[in-house]
């Protein structure tokens, strides 16, 4: 039900505007000195000095992809193409290849000779991370793709993806796996001669 609200009456001070204007200026000057010459922790600003200052992203922010390393520095990726199959934006291109004959992984494993992600096409859905059976591709960097003025800068190749560390600053993952070719793999010591 509608009801009437009683308007507060105007005083002479209100009517003259001078007092209220001075009060307002007081707030303005207080904020001005607080945000410019006052101690930094007292500052109340809506803006930040980007890119020198950055805000913390939420915990669940995905960020740009990276390729994790094995202990020996080789990519953990086995070029199974599960990520590029799962990718709805079709932004991942991989060319698999076999390790060289002198590599302990030769014959067992494959590796990506070419691994390219078109970050302009990527929709950051994280399906590639879900699909990866080797924990080789991760979106735990906490950073976004840096701005650039050239399209080519957004085409991340294998070297670029392997040069991005995770949030913890390392290039590996805390996810151990015994792979053929690793000294820890029990199958390696068996007699292979026929």
């Amino acid at each position, binding site marked *: 039900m509608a009801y009437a609200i009683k308007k507060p009456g105007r005083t002479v001070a209100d009517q003259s505007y001078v007092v209220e204007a001075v009060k307002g200026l007081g707030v303005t000057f207080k904020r001005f000195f607080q945000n410019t010459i006052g101690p930094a922790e007292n500052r109340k600003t809506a803006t930040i000095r980007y890119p020198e200052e950055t805000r913390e992203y939420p915990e669940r922010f995905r960020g740009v992809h990276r390729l994790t390393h094995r202990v020996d520095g080789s990519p953990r990726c086995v070029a199974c*193409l599960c990520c590029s199959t799962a990718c709805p934006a079709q932004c991942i291109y991989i060319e*698999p290849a076999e390790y060289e004959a002198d590599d302990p992984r030769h014959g067992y494993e494959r590796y990506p000779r070419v691994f390219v992600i078109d970050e302009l096409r990527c929709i950051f859905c994280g399906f590639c991370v879900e699909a990866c059976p080797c924990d080789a591709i991760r979106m735990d960097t906490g950073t976004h793709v840096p701005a650039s003025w050239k399209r080519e800068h957004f085409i991340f190749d294998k070297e670029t993806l392997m040069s991005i560390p995770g949030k913890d600053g390392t290039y590996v993952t805390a996810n151990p796996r015994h792979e053929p070719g690793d000294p820890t793999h029990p199958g390696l010591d068996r007699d292979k001669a026929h």
Partner: protein
Amino acid sequence: MPTFKLDGQEIPFEPGDTIIRAAWKKGVEIPHYCWHPGLSIAANCRMCLVEIKSARPMALPILAWDEKKKDYVETTKNKLQPACQMEVTEGMEVVSKGAAVEKAQASVQEFLLLNHPVDCPICDQAGECKLQDYWLAHQKKLKRKDTEPVHKPKAVRFGPTIVYDAERCIMCTRCIRFCDEVVGDHVLDMRERGNKNEICVSPGRELDHAYTLMTEHVCPVGALTSKDFRFKARVWFLRSAPGVCNGCATGCNTWVDYDPRYQRVYRLRPRDNEEVNKFWMCDAGMMTYKRFHEDRILTGRVRQEGRVVEVPRDVSIEAASKVLEKSQRLAVVFSAQHTNEDNFVLGKLGREHLGGTALYLAALSPESVPGGWKGDAILRHPDPNPNRAGATAVAGGELRSTADLAADIAAGKIDAILSLGWAAGESVEQLANLANVPHVNLSSNIGPLTQVATVVVPVATTAEASGTFVNAKGMAQQFQRAVNAPLGIKSAWETLIEIGKRVGREIAFAKLPEVRAAMPATTSAVAAAS
């Protein structure tokens, strides 16, 4: 025809058929690993266990939990039978989808996966592996065993073409039986027992007969992988087109597996055809796919003052028409490597429109095949040309060889040549004479004929065009285009019609069925293949 009942469905059979074979003939699949329609029965994988209702059940005494008594009681259960070994009888009732069967299938599947490494990401069989398919269809449960699996040799070299992974092997023995029964070479066998069981090569031997790649194709899992295809592509990206092998006159039916994104052929697989190749193909045949991409001719070539100059396709067609317009005594060289359609239109243009009367056939000889060619009693025909019979038939009679052509040129009987294909049984030196007269050649690859030609016009390979081959038995088999020809290149018959137009001779074929309709009936029959 007598019938039996499988899951309520009436299925006809021939006396002597096993349950799985009768069902397979009808297109019903009973899960199996070790059974193969072309090999003997091993009945060792136990995946095809079924319940036979009609016969007196073989009862196995078991202990079952009784809820009321809160104790185990003695009872019996029906023994399941392997469908691959059990012969069908009239009126037999078989259940392949009941609770007992499903439990057996799940248990067999779990047993096979106990020590399997499940390295599907690096396994080349991923996507066409029976372990994956049947796990999803009949088990869908996680492994209950939590100890380290038994490790066995990985990446063992079996021979020049095959790599073996014992951990992935499920001991179905299909590869052993294939070598024994089809090839007749007992090069593979099993050793050890239980979970140490593995396939091994005979001492002092390698897996190096002429059919080694078939062992990879009969392997239901990724234990045997082909060195050529290893780590090259994932099968779920590949599409298949029905093809016919170019390797010899047997004309084995193939699946041409290509990647539509890159328009590239990755492998050839045998396509079942009881009358030609059954389920098999030879190594050399499977490797003919390399010809689709290696040594290709992608631009026109014109010989100017002794040097070969690459020119656009249009320019080479123009140059070809100039040569043909001037010719009076034209030699027409058919090709045993090209399709009936190509040879037929070549005959139309060369003989009917340009008046060529001297007809020859360019065909590979066993010696001219790189690495040599030998026939055998299994599949390989002594003639390494897929379409000698077809080319001869559309030309309307026996053709003379390219060696005869060289002799005729020396005798001055010829003043121009129109030839098809790259293949010839003679070397470039033996054919040097052919370069003495203006010579138009339509070819997809570099070969002796292209090297002695004045003008080479690029044409499509057999993977890039549909066509028909007639094999040594006289069967006309059609195959379909797999990939698109690059750079505006067209099939040979279309290119011949273009050249015909340039010299003012209209050949009224616009589509392939029109060419087929005009060809002799024996060379255009629709193949029995799917």
